[in-house]
């Protein structure tokens, strides 16, 4: 069923009792052309684009929990394409373009809101770095504006501009950046994939990967063996565990990242703002809660919850930027498990095993990449070769020395 104002009126008149489920709950078939492991944003968007762009509809998405129970519902909903390095920027800009047309494309209201992403700078050196980044973005056709302190003051007069420690000198603004309702992204892709014939199988954990003569033949799951000729892994924080089933050891560490939402406030912050002197980013949801986050806790974890020191650190950074936050109460906090790669950039690639494809290493930038990740991964699976947009995100770049290290931290996953 296509959602429209007419379907809304019709269902309102019947008391909202006759809405059809947005996707089926099928029993797994004995085999598929393509099986995707992981029913999060990236897995679902991969299935969607496999069906839509490549006509592959004999596809299953296997999810060990419920649909969208992982990082697609645990992020701070920010989208942006303000990267600098050549391998990254065209990819994230393609993602931004897909976001811009996404709701019409999959007929679902994902509340894509291009409210602008502003990165603050606090020193002259940081402003120089932002000018360089902004120029790199514009070379790739991405919008970027360098603001001075007065420009920022007009947008957000309540920031601590004259802080003796972290005075605000200006910022780099990407107006096309913004936020998206993250759950709706999972639901929209699931519905779009399902309506094209993809089976989305929840509560189905992959327990083994069968390989015969160097070629994938299927997966063992908690609901029995499922055969496939192509297998795509999009397991985010659990990527190392899943890849180990195929005997692979990845350049990945799993780390916990916390995020927070405050009590509801009147409209206060109308864009996304990041603090430049500490790790803090904030936006305000349509319900009024401030959604904010900071840095990794810093130790390997699969626990989906962090510790108090990072909570304090994030909130200290927030109050340093916006003193008015000091009396706002935190409503909820949660953690997600990040697949931190060795250079801070993702991997979308084939593997040495025929029919096995890998999508991982999203660090904590996976949400904004959801559309392009699925689009590129679908291309890689369907054509058995990387698209130009993910040509740099190869698994062998670590061996070959072609790192894409935006932050320049080297092989230290907890610092990216």
């Amino acid at each position: 069923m296509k959602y429209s104002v007419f379907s809304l009126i019709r269902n309102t008149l019947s008391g909202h009792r006759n809405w059809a489920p947005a996707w089926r709950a099928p029993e797994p078939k004995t085999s598929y052309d393509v099986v995707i492991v992981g029913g999060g944003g990236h897995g679902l968007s991969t299935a969607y684009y496999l069906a839509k762009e490549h006509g592959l509809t004999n596809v299953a998405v296997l999810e060990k929990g419920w649909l969208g129970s992982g990082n697609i519902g645990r992020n701070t909903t920010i989208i942006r394409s303000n990267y600098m390095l050549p391998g990254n920027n065209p990819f994230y800009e393609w993602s931004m373009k897909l976001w811009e047309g996404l709701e019409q494309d999959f007929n679902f209201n994902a509340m894509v809101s291009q409210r602008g992403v502003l990165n603050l700078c606090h020193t002259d050196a940081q402003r120089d770095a932002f000018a360089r980044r902004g120029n790199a973005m514009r070379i790739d056709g991405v919008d970027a504006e360098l603001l001075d302190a007065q420009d920022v003051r007009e947008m957000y007069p309540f920031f601590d501009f004259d802080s003796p420690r972290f005075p605000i000198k200006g910022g780099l603004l990407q107006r096309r950046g913004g936020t998206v309702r993250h759950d709706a992204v999972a639901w929209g892709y699931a519905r779009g994939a399902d309506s094209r014939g993809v089976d989305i199988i929840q509560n189905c954990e992959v327990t083994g990967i069968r390989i015969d003569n160097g070629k994938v033949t299927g997966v063992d799951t908690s609901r029995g063996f499922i055969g496939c000729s192509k297998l795509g892994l999009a397991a985010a924080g659990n990527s190392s565990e899943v890849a180990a089933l195929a005997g692979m050891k990845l350049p990945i560490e799993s780390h916990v990242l916390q995020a927070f939402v405050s009590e509801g406030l009147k409209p206060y912050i109308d864009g996304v703002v990041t603090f430049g002197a500490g790790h803090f980013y904030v936006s305000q949801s349509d319900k009024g809660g401030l959604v904010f986050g900071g840095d990794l806790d810093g130790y390997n974890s699969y626990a989906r919850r962090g510790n108090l020191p990072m909570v304090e650190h994030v909130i200290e950074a927030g109050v340093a930027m916006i003193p008015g936050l000091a009396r706002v109460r935190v409503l909820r906090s949660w953690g997600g498990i990040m697949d931190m790669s060795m250079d801070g950039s993702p991997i979308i690639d084939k593997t040495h095993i025929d029919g096995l494809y890998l999508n991982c290493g999203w660090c904590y930038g996976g949400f904004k990449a959801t559309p392009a990740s699925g689009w590129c991964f679908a291309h890689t699976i369907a054509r058995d070769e990387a698209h130009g947009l993910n040509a740099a995100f190869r698994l062998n770049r670590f061996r070959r020395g072609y790192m894409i290290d935006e932050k320049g931290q080297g092989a230290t996953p907890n610092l990216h």
Partner: protein
Amino acid sequence: MLIKCPHCGARPVEEYTFLGDARPQRPTSNDPSTMEQWFDYVYLRDNPKGRFDEYVQHSGGCRAWLVVSRNTATHEIHGTVTARDWTKSRQGAKA
């Protein structure tokens, strides 16, 4: 998380700095033929869900390098030894 430092006793997690997996062994040779060992040491990780031995420095305390054995799924701490003792016990286990 409270981590018990062998020198200072149980101290809160913010006193510690985490380096990461203590299992990878630094290759002893610089010969190009050991490239695979170096690649493995620098970039590849077992990244286990469960018991995990990691190098941790008590940077906000005695500054000693430790090896903490911790469960990455529950954050339970199984034990802490100094990095020196840990290396010795590993070498002992090999010999």
